[in-house]
């Protein structure tokens, strides 16, 4: 496997000669919803305060005026009922986008997601699919304390029957929705709440876009940093800091948490022989544990050092800024973990 293969992952998505626009993550998400609604009359958006309020993170601002209250549907505070209604509507032939304000409130809809959305196809012997998209914000970092700071996408990635996407760049925020809607099965999209204001480039893509493959966001030969979503930025910062110390870190953005793109991870490890996994979720029983296990199963003999994990401290997220920041992964901890794999400090 040549080291160049990794960059092909990115290159595959580039339209030759395509233009690039700069926008915010929030605007990218809104553009994706608009486009999907214009394209397909079966698509509608429903959730709490998506209409008149304009979306709790202002993603859907202006869409009510454009598409009307039937298709931009404000719901009462009834997460279980409207997520279930989304599942039913998908079975009935619609293509719903259900917005749950945050992953924290998705816990009130867990029964519908885990007992219905993920199982209906199987229980019905393949007769009933659920082509549904559920979007929600996730993550800590805004001093919202324990009940509003969960990172539970890894939990959802535990469930067969669900697919999980986590756009970590503005470009992915712009493009991941359509393939999620095109998918015959339920797809959950996790948008890290600290990303909505982030600005970034969005290339014009010529249809050749695959959200299910991991992307190599930075190439390097010394250590592989594996992350996604909200911690991608901090991981790239860490990679930059490592460069100062003469360490070339490769950064993999998982993008899809289920299915996981094992091939891209193992390919990188064959080159770097060292892995650090960065995840805002807690360590115990987690996505980072799953990735660790897969590396051990598939690339054990390629490793030169124990795998390192940089995750959130095993504590509900506290309110004060200094404690919250200490609880979640930071560039400094990522740098230290990467150096540890190289036997340096």
């Amino acid at each position, binding site marked *: 496997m040549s080291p160049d293969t990794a960059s092909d992952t990115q290159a595959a998505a580039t339209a030759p000669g395509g233009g690039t626009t700069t926008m915010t993550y929030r605007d990218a998400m809104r553009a994706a919803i608009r486009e999907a609604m214009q394209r397909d009359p079966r698509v509608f958006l429903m959730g709490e305060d998506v209409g008149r309020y304009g979306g709790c993170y202002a993603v859907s601002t202006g869409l009510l005026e454009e598409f009307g209250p039937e298709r931009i549907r404000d719901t009462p505070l009834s997460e279980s009922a409207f997520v279930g209604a989304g599942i039913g509507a998908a079975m009935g032939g619609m293509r719903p986008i259900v917005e749950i304000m945050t992953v924290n409130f998705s816990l009130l809809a867990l029964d519908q997601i885990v007992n219905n959305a993920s199982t209906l196809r199987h229980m019905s012997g393949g007769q009933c699919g659920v082509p549904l998209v559920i979007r929600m914000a996730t993550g800590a970092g805004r001093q919202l304390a324990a009940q509003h700071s969960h990172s539970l996408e890894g939990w959802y990635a535990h469930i067969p029957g669900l697919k999980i996407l986590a756009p970590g760049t503005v470009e992915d925020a712009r493009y991941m929705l359509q393939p999620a809607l095109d998918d015959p099965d339920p797809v959950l999209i996790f948008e890290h709440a600290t990303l909505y204001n982030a600005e970034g480039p969005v290339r014009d893509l010529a249809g050749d876009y695959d959200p299910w493959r991991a992307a190599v966001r930075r190439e390097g030969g010394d250590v592989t940093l594996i992350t996604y979503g909200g911690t991608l930025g901090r991981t790239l910062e860490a990679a930059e800091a490592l460069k100062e110390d003469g360490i070339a870190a490769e950064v993999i953005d998982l993008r899809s948490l289920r299915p996981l793109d094992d091939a891209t991870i193992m390919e990188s490890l064959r080159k770097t022989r060292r892995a650090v996994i960065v995840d805002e979720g807690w360590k115990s029983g987690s996505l980072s544990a799953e990735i660790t296990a897969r590396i051990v199963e598939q690339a054990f003999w390629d490793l030169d050092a124990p795998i390192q994990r940089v995750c959130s401290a095993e504590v509900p997220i506290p309110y004060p800024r*200094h404690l919250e920041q200490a609880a979640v992964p930071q560039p400094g901890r990522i740098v230290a973990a990467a150096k540890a794999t190289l036997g340096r400090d």
Partner: protein
Amino acid sequence: MAPDTHKPRLSRAHLLEVLRQMLRIRHFEEKCAELYQQEKIRGFLHLYIGEEAVAVGAMRALEPEDAVVATYREHGHALARGVPMTAVMAEMYGKAEGCSGGRGGSMHLFDAERRFFGGNAIVGGGLPLAIGLALSDKLAERPRVTACFFGEGAVAEGEFHESMNLAALWKLPVLFICENNYYAMGTALERSESQTDVHLKAQAYGMPAEAVDGMDVVAIEAAALGAAAAVRAGEGPRFLECRTYRFRAHSMFDPQLYRDKAEVEEHRKHGPLVRFLGWIKEAGLLHQEDVDRLEQEIAKEIDEAVAFAEAGEWEPVETLTRHVYAEEAAS
């Protein structure tokens, strides 16, 4: 809703105390808004301005051994329950001297000693807890009340309906107090409920329930006293729907695209303080000097609370993983 003509006879001390509590909350909240602009308070901040009469009136019906469960809009409830303003303000800052050790912030004020079981930030999340607190009193045969405050937005949640049923079915000593301010974030009540008379939902579960003028602190106190007495006497749960209004944004992030400024202004004219002050002055029960004196005392109390919070300590990072499990060994 009864007009103001049915005011019971209240002592001067009683009136002063009610006014004092409402003013304390109003000015505390105004201070918090200021401190939020200065980034002393962070995260979500939900102000209670406009709704003071509900917490102040209802809390007067409670005894020290009763329990209180509230939402993320709970600063007023904590203050009216007697949680010291210093400890509340320190919590807003996230300082170790705060009433939740700084861990909770604005949405999670706790004070076990005063049986104040939190600010819950999941809509509807407090109701089942209140049921359980009441169940423990029932099982232990303690004549206590658990007061559970929540917004009208919560009545759309399954947890509301499950709790109504359990409370009524098991005749649990809960006093439910729905603070109907007509908006759940940007969603007006009539856009989210097929039945907008919220108390009828409780009645449907066989629970005595009534609507109360939530801008009239005296009416709320009277209704709460009656309801709490019935609950304490073992007659099962009671439900009060207090019709009020939120004068400020839902939180500090809310641009309020969903309602007219004129609507807010109209409600302000009939706010709980305007109403109460108008009544007591007109009836000659209190005088401007009384109000001025209260204002001065409260300004001082707030200054002291801010100074206390400013002087407070940040918990050291070394203890980050404290309070996940009990610190005493299992017995």
